[in-house]
Every structure is written in structure tokens, then in C-alpha cells.
């Protein structure tokens, strides 16, 4: 802004711009030169930016920019790089036996980290983010395993699932003794109380232990074994311990015996690659400290 010819503000002695509003005049106080230059440079920079990078929205797309920059493409590259970086460890996972992975601290740490991520994406909806489980969905942190808790058994369960429809899936289910008319309601109450007594829980008034034992021997031993110790081959739970997948109160047990149970664990073979399934097995195994 140039000085307005010969006009000065009498109070400050400075030149004015000659602009006047209701008798108030504007002093000529220019911005610092470097400030103005910086401001113009940012404009030049912005124009350069429009040309170089994607910038202007068009009707159905946007200007592409001369660099061909794309954050989506960059992400793809980064993901590919990540896979490459992981590649070595993933190959090592695939090549190392399950038992040896746990003996190699570095590989164990990697398998746990990988397993934890994949668990969060795939398993947490049923088993919970920390694998604490819920009613009908086993807690994977304890030492009770329906289908066996060794590394190999865990891996097999993850790979093929249970009642998943996969040819190699675990099969076997809790029959619906009430619904199918095998046991009468009073027999179900009796055997439910008997099952509670197996793990040291209190029984109802007038409970006939001998009758319960007989009903159990006739109907349940085939799967749950003598004394109710369970059978991992059939996924039949141990009824003498403190862990109950669906609950241990009388009402729940009566429901279980009457209606049966057949929870489904999906098969992950084909959905996750073999090395990842291995990592999952190691992670799940390490949650409960392994068997």
C-alpha cells in the first residue's frame, strides 16, 4: 500500500491510506515484508500442491495430480511390505513344529502377537477379546478342555472345528433326554442333582443318590465315562470339576439334560493360512499355560 499523497495523521504523525469511514481514517501500517513474502509463497506452494497431488473434486472423481500419488495405493504397498517383513517369521512358524515354537522365545513372542491379533479379528465375537468365554462358549484361559488341551488337540479344533460340517470336525453332542422322551421329568431332576453331587455341589431335598447313580449309569456313562470324568474324543465334559460351560445350577442342568447341547465351533482351515492357524494354537495354548 502506498502512502496517500501528503496526508498525515496529526496524532501519530504517520501517513494514512486515504481510506475514510465516518470520518475515521486508516493509518498506513503495512505488514512486515517477510510476512507478506511468506504469505505469497504459501499461495505459490498451494498451486504447486494442486498440480502435484490429487486435489480438486470433480463430478465423479478428482484430479489425480502429476505424481500419481494415492494414499490407498500407499497403504497397499505398506501392507505388502508388512507381509514381507513378517514373511521370514511366518515361514519359520510354518516350518517349526508346534512344540518347538514354544521353546524359542522370539518365535513364541511372534506367534503370540500374531495369534492375539487374529484372535481379536476372528475368535473374539464368541470367546471374548481376552478369551474369557461366555455361557456356551468356553473360557480358553482355564485348564479344562472339551476336545483336549494339548497343542496338537487345540490346533485340530481350530483347524476343523466342532460340529462345523467339516469332514474332519469333532462330532458328538449332548442328547435331548427330555425332548426326545428318553427320561421322565422326575428322572431328569434326580440325575441333575446327581451330577451336581459329582463335583461336590449341594443337592436338593429328598434327593435319592442311588436312583441318580442308576439313571446316570444307564444313560450318561457312554459319553461322560464312569464317574462322569468326561471324554475329550466326544467333547463330553468332565462333570466332576468346577468348570461348567452352561452353568451348574439345577435349573440349567435340567435344561441341558432335557434339551441337549450342540454348540458349534467353525472350522478355520481355508479361512486362515496354516502358519496363522499354528500361531493361533500357540496363542490359545499359552493363554492357559498349556497342558
Amino acid at each position, binding site marked *: 500500500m502506498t502512502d496517500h499523497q*501528503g*496526508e*498525515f*495523521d*496529526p*496524532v*501519530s*504523525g*504517520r*501517513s494514512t491510506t486515504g481510506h475514510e469511514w465516518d470520518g475515521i*481514517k486508516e*493509518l498506513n*501500517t*503495512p*505488514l*512486515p*515484508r*517477510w510476512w507478506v513474502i511468506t504469505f505469497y509463497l504459501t499461495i505459490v506452494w498451494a498451486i504447486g500442491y494442486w498440480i502435484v497431488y490429487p486435489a480438486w473434486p470433480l463430478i465423479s472423481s478428482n484430479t489425480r495430480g502429476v505424481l500419481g500419488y494415492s494414499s490407498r495405493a500407499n497403504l497397499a504397498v505398506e501392507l505388502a511390505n508388512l507381509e514381507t517383513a513378517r514373511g521370514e517369521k511366518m515361514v519359520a512358524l510354518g516350518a517349526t513344529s508346534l512344540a518347538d515354537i*514354544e*521353546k524359542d*522365545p522370539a518365535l*513364541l*513372542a511372534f506367534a*503370540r502377537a500374531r495369534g492375539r491379533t487374529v484372535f481379536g479379528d476372528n475368535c473374539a465375537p464368541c470367546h*471374548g*477379546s*481376552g478369551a*474369557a468365554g461366555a455361557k456356551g462358549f468356553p*473360557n480358553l*484361559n*482355564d*485348564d*479344562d478342555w472339551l476336545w483336549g488341551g494339548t497343542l496338537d488337540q487345540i490346533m485340530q479344533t481350530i483347524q476343523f472345528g466342532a460340529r462345523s460340517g467339516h469332514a474332519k470336525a469333532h462330532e458328538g453332542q449332548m442328547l435331548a433326554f427330555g425332548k426326545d422322551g428318553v427320561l421322565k421329568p422326575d428322572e431328569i431332576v434326580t440325575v441333575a442333582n446327581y451330577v451336581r453331587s459329582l463335583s461336590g455341589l449341594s443337592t436338593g431335598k429328598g434327593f435319592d443318590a442311588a436312583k441318580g447313580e442308576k439313571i446316570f449309569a444307564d444313560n450318561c456313562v457312554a459319553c461322560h465315562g464312569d464317574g462322569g470324568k468326561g471324554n475329550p474324543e466326544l467333547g463330553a465334559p*468332565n462333570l466332576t*470339576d*468346577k*468348570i461348567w460351560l452352561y452353568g451348574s445350577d439345577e435349573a440349567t442342568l435340567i435344561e441341558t439334560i432335557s434339551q441337549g447341547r450342540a454348540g458349534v465351533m467353525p472350522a478355520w482351515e481355508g479361512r486362515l493360512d496354516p502358519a496363522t492357524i499354528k500361531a493361533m494354537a500357540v496363542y490359545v495354548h*499359552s*493363554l*492357559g*499355560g*498349556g497342558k
Partner: protein
Amino acid sequence: MNKAVNPNELTSDDDYGPLYAARKKVYPQSVHGTFRRIKWGLMAFCLGVYYFLPFVRWNRGLGAPSQAVLIDLPNSRFYFFFIELWPQEVYYFTGLLIVAAVVLFLMNSVGGRIWCGYLCPQTVWTDLFYAVERFVEGDRRDRMMKDKSAGALTLRRVSEIVLKNFIWLLIAWWAGGAWVLYFSDAPTLVKQLLTFQAPMVAYIWIGILTATTFVLAGYLREQVCTYMCPWPRIQAALTDEWALNVTYRYDRGEKRTSVKKAAELRAHGEQVGDCIDCYQCVAVCPTGIDIRNGPQLECIQCGLCIDACDNVMTRIGRPKRLIGYDNDINIQRRQEGRAPIYRIVRPRTIVYSAIIAAVGGIMLYTLATRSLLDVNVLHDRNPVAVRLSDGSIRNAYTVRLLNKSGYDRVIAIDANGPVNATVHVVGIDSVTPDRPMIVIPRDSTSELRLLVTAPADGNPEKSIPVRFHVTDIGLGEVASATDNFVAP
């Protein structure tokens, strides 16, 4: 409409002037004297430390960096001579920042803006750039004349400008170069830089710092102090009435008059001041102000006007320090005929010194006693506790062991808390029951999953503290951490 008035006829009050005045180029004149020598010395010291520190070696043994001062970002370690800091120890920097701030306060309460005048990088590099300019283009008078006849670009003038900017660029480039050397092994990086093998980020940083040094010290100069830097505002607020500031002793200087006239008037027994209005103090000022107008924001208190005035006073046979480090109290006292008093030990300086001593002491103590073995424990939150098939309770923990030493350690882990608890580390078949052992390589961390199992009976219902001890089997060094054992 106002009548046009000649600005020279007007008296303006600076307090109501505009916030920005168009830049008047400053041509500081060279000067010799005490403060100039102090400035040269401090400049040599500061730049010497900055430019050469990365090349100082420090033997830390095999496999560890042998650079005395190194910020190792990829491995997140900070090395400072015998000190090695890990990321979780950045609180030492907090301590350092507190000490640095209070040292600034202390300097301020003793001698005003010592930082601005002598130590600030902007001052130091600008001063160096001025020296270069003076060397190439000549002193104040020459430079003013050359700029006035800017239209006449002779070959000599052009080559001067090119030479000056070239030397400036070299200095600025080295300033950027030295910066990156703090982040990597200096000799290796120098070699890489010269053969164009260095990482891109190194070149980028050198470029950025070269540009900022060149522009800020070469062209923006006093504008940085006056308009960009917030520190003058803060420093002005920190200065109290006892702080020594570069001060024109107007009680002694006024009334100003020429040497000859002063001698005449003195012969008649009249009172005249020592200031002869020679403008030497203004000519040498790097911010282009007149110190005789009293304390002002632009004054960085570098003391060069003191040198200039002292030289003049010596020449005209008057006592030195018409301009000197002084405070308003003393000017007042002298006018009243009382002796000046200087008080460096005051409540304010005592408090600042005490804070510096306290924070410094705490830092030294923690540095001296900090452990090279450490353990962090994180309780599993989901689930917090697990009931096992036999009714016992298990809690899981993520345990991070830190071996900050330069040797591998064999570590045993104990957990004291629940009665009859057993400890198991995933992936380790313990030889000693309930006391897992593990090797942690030097200068590294290990993350373990630790399971503590307690029988259902004999333990309280809710939550009891559990203490983890990690013991170096060889040296007996112990570190511990406390967490809780929770029942479901």
C-alpha cells in the same frame, strides 16, 4: 478532514505507535572491548560444543555405540557420556527442562537478558554472520555506502555479495550437518553423506536447518528477536528492580553536549553530562536502538554499546561506564547522592538457586541409584481371574523384564502373595519348582506371560497384593514390582 501536517513537526508517543514499523536496515559497526571479547569467547565455546560434540568418542564396550552424545532413535536409546537412558526414563529430560528454565530465571534476576545477549543461537549465529559480512563488505560506513549505490552493480560488488552468501551458506550447512550427527554415528554418517549413501531424512534435515540458519541469521536477524521470539516478552516480565541491565546512566550523561563545549562549561563550574552525543552506542547496536532512551524491548543486552561508549570515554578522558550494567535503583540513589548498592543474593536468587540445587540433586541421586535391572508387571484384565477345574484360582500377568546392563543376565522370578501359590512362565519348563529362570540378553527387554495359581482355600475372597521379585542369579541384583491377585 484533517489538515496535512509535516510529520517532523509532530511529537509522537512511542507507546501508542504501531505494533510494526517498516524495517530499517541495521548496520552494526565493529567494536572492541570487554564485552566484545566475552561474546567472541562464548561464541567459540557454544559453536565449538555444537559443531564438534558428535565427534567425541566414548567407549561403552562391544556392540554398544561409541559416541559420547547420541540420540539413537531406531533403538530408542539416548547416550550421554556415561549415561544411557531408555524411553521410559524420559522424565530426566523433564528435570533437565526444569533446571534449564530456572537457570534462565536466575540469569535474568542477576544480569537481565544474558541469554539473549550472549547465548541464544539466533544471537550467536547472527553475530558470526555479521563478522563474515564485515570481512567481505567492510564496516558500517562501507556497507551503508554500498547499499545506497545498489544500482551500480559492478563486478566487484556482485562478487562480494556472492562470496558473502556463499560463506553464510557454508556455515549454515555445517549447522544443519552437525545437527544430524547427533542422531547417528558421526564418522560413519559423514562418510555416507559424502558418498551420497546417507538416509534421505539426513539430507532433508540438513536442508531444513541450512535454510533456517541462513535465512534467520543472514536476513531476518534482529527481526527474529523483535517480532518472532516470545522470549523478550517473558524475560521482560521476569526482570526485577535489582537485576543488572545494560543501562545508560542518564544521571551522569545528561545534559549532552560536545567535548569542547563541555570543557568550557566545566571551566565555568557549570554542571554538564559526559555524553557527547557521538551515536557510537547506536552505531554498534545489532538491533539498531538507542540505549539512551532507557530499557526497551528490542535491546538484547549484548553489552556492545558499553564497549563503544567506554572507548569514547577513554578517548575524551572521562571515566568509563557511562553505559554499563546497572539498575534503576542505583540511578535513583546516585541522583540523591547516595552510594549505589548491588545485591545479587536476594530472596529471588536464593529461591531459584535452591530449586536448581534441589532438582539437580534429585536427578543426580536417581541417576546414581537407578537400577540396571527392572521389572514391569501388567495384570490381565480380561479375564482378571480364572477358576481352574480343581477350584484353584489363576491370575495371568504380562511381565516385562528390562536388562539395561551391558551383559546377559540369568534371572529368577518369584511371586510372593497368595499362600502356596505356584508360578509358571509360558514357554519355560522350570527346573526349580515355582521359581522360573530365564536369560535376558544385554541391553534388551523380554516380555513374558506369567501365571500365578493359588489353591482355592487359604486365600482371601477379593484381592491381595502380590509382589514379583526378579533376581539376577549371578550378581544378586534384585528388582521388584507389586500388583494384585484377584479372586473371581
